[in-house]
């Protein structure tokens, strides 16, 4: 067992170290998230009731776009400098270190979004109780976005114009996550309770955790060929 965890721990540790060393990129993603959220009141108007109504949707769409923006960092650098080839030649199954890479990526970009979101929600005067549901829905939702996004990133690896193509590939897949994520907060605010939405998000996360790395590993293998 410890032998199999070797590559997992090695890749996870290295990627977190790289994220720490390149933390400027992480801050850029966070800054993008904050800026996008703050733009909406200028477009929609500052009327509190209206802002409160659109807050969950705005926060979730901004989180989704921030994830999309940072996906290229998952494999591009390793593909360029040859590390990806070496990783594909490790004896342990590819899925193992792919999950490690995606987890490290989520910790570096997804988690900060979850931490910052409640603060931003206050800009929209979101009710205190809903902040907990917002954080929970983002905590369950952003890993799904990272996993699905990783499949798109692997498929578009090394293509010119890959960024746009990646967005086109994964956005339809993000829609259900967005629906249940933003819907959870709305359901809570309307008193129905976010139980169903959060459970579905949790189920979605487990399913994606099981399937997406397989598709991602296959896509990486053909990208390197």
């Amino acid at each position, binding site marked *: 067992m410890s032998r199999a965890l070797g590559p997992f721990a090695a890749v996870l540790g290295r990627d977190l170290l790289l994220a720490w060393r390149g933390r400027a990129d992480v801050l850029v993603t966070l800054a993008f998230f904050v800026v996008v959220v703050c733009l909406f009141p200028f477009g929609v108007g500052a009327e509190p009731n209206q802002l409160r109504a659109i807050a969950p949707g705005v926060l979730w769409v901004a989180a989704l776009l921030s994830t999309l923006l940072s996906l290229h960092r998952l494999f591009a650098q390793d593909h360029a400098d040859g590390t990806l080839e070496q990783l594909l030649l490790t004896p342990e199954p590819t899925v193992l270190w792919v999950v490690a890479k995606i987890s490290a990526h989520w910790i570096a970009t997804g988690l900060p979004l979850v931490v910052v979101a409640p603060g931003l929600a206050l800009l929209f005067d979101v009710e205190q109780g809903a902040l907990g549901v917002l954080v929970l829905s983002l905590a369950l939702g952003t890993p799904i976005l990272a996993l699905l996004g990783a499949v798109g990133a692997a*498929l578009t690896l090394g*293509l010119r114009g890959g960024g746009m193509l990646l967005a086109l590939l994964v956005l*339809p*897949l993000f*829609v259900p996550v967005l629906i249940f994520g933003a819907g959870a907060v709305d359901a809570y605010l309307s008193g129905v309770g976010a139980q169903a939405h959060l459970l579905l998000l949790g189920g*979605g996360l487990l399913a994606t955790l099981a399937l997406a790395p397989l*598709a991602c590993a296959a896509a990486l293998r*053909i990208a390197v060929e």
Partner: protein
Amino acid sequence: MMKDMQKPERSKSIFRFAAPQMFYPLAGKLAPWFAGIAAVLAAAGMWLGFFVAPTDAVQGEVYRVIYIHVAAAWMSMFVYLVMAFWSFVGLVMNTRLSFIMSQALAPTGAMFCFVALWTGALWGKPTWGAYWVWDARLTSQLLLLFLYLGFMALTRAIEDPRRADKAGAIIALVGAVNVPIIYFSVKWWNTLHQGASVSLNKAPSMATTMLTGMLVMALAAWAYTIAVTLWRVRSLILERERHTDWVAAELNALEGKI
């Protein structure tokens, strides 16, 4: 000139058509037949839909858009599932013809998807008062169009044919797994649209001639899809197998005509 890689053996099994060289002439022979069938069925469907079927009590004449709208919607969903099937076969059996088949299907599927959206919008304006209504089925249809565009963009963006095939196959399968998820999440999100007027378990709430008209149009669309796909497959095969002898012979034969 390059010797052909593997000698095409004259086995009698159905799988011999899995070889591009054998499938090419077969597609050439079948395609015109399907095109003919499509034309005949379309004419019959239109005649049924416009001249035989009665006026709808509630919507008046505008409901006649249903004949093309429902046929296109069904086809766009069905073609995507067939694409996913060929992608799966291609990945498992590693037969290049399966990948070529799914790539040949995509444009027609996308076309039907757009037709379904377009006719849905034009039909929606008089009945629901707006061109675009975020109703569950129309919205999933829109997302299906994005899946089609994603597949076609990805397969064209990659130069190396082999990687393009496999990458396209993976996104087609990932998309296929997500189609039901998208559909039910959109349905959960918005249940404005009244229940499907034609669903298998419930008796059709329409006159039989209306239903037959619609089914005939659906068959016409199906035959049309096969014809166009077979023609497109032939072009793709010529492109992909251009290094082989039989394509060289084929080109010589075509030298004068084209």
